């Protein structure tokens, strides 16, 4: 395995999984605090099993798609996905939209579950498990997509999966050691970095799918990412300055 090629893919998978892992863990903690660890753990395990099934089903299908078509499809999806992340991260960094707060997410989810407890006491274990399951599947789907997207074009799905797995272990270890949601993780900075990397991968793979031979081959991803970072930082600075000029 060539590390010049693998490092951006593994790093992107690791950082994005860190963000998604923190968000999923917040919901799982909320479920556990209202209804105990049994439904939270069962929902989490069921969610992980479904994600594993999706990966196992998708992987052989990917091998059947011609490489250029695969690069183009994944490239376009990455552009849509990555630039959506980056846009939101820029707007949050500039103060246009509110930052995502794990403390508020935890309180909201806990309150919703307590509300359901008052209305459907008999079904609460089931509803709590479902909330945990939904959080793991929704956040996990994004991780699965990112792992496949950054890894498939160069046969790095295995390496990217290891990056994602390492991030999940880090989140779980810190979460269970602290026994509360991880509020201090600089989530928007991570989202900003991941948005930049995913957008760069998107341009790179779409270009390859269109027959572009990028100068420097895989190293071009780093140069493209640097350009995205530059434009994103400029957008943050300009938006902040405008907000200062017209408060």
């Amino acid at each position, binding site marked *: 395995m060539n590390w010049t090629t693998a490092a951006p893919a593994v790093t992107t998978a690791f950082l994005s999984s860190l963000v998604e892992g923190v968000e999923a863990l917040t919901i799982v903690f909320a479920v556990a605090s209202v209804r105990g660890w049994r439904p939270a753990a069962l929902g989490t395990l069921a969610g992980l099993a479904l994600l594993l099934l999706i990966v196992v089903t998708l992987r052989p299908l990917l091998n059947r798609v011609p490489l250029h078509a695969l690069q183009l499809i994944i490239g376009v999806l990455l552009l849509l996905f990555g630039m959506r992340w980056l846009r939101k991260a820029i707007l949050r960094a500039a103060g*246009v939209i509110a930052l995502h707060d794990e403390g508020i997410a935890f309180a909201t989810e806990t309150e919703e579950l307590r509300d359901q407890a008052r209305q459907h006491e008999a079904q609460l274990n089931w509803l709590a498990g479902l909330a945990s399951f939904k959080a793991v599947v929704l956040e996990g789907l994004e991780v699965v997509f990112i792992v496949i997207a950054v890894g498939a074009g160069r046969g790095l799905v295995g390496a990217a999966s290891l990056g994602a797995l390492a991030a999940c272990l880090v989140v779980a270890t810190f979460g269970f050691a602290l026994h509360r949601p991880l509020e201090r993780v600089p989530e928007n900075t991570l989202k900003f970095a991941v948005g930049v990397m995913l957008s760069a991968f998107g341009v790179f793979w779409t270009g390859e799918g*269109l*027959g572009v031979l990028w100068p420097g081959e895989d190293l071009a991803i780093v140069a493209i990412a640097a350009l995205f970072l530059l434009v994103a930082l400029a957008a943050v600075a300009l938006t902040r300055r405008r907000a200062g000029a017209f408060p």
Partner: protein
Amino acid sequence: MNVLVAASQTLVGLFVDDGSLAIAILMIVLVSGIFSILMPDMPLVAGAMLLIGCLAVLFANVMKAAQD
């Protein structure tokens, strides 16, 4: 049925948040793709169009969102 609709909405939501950004990205890809087919000897120009187009679209979209 409701579950399927909710699942597909969630799936689309992964890729499309601001519709105008998604459409602009697809237009850039389309134009770069047409250029690469019409001018197969200049693939790097298609790559540059793609890269610069995406950067410009992102910048313009953020500026517009901040103004609104």
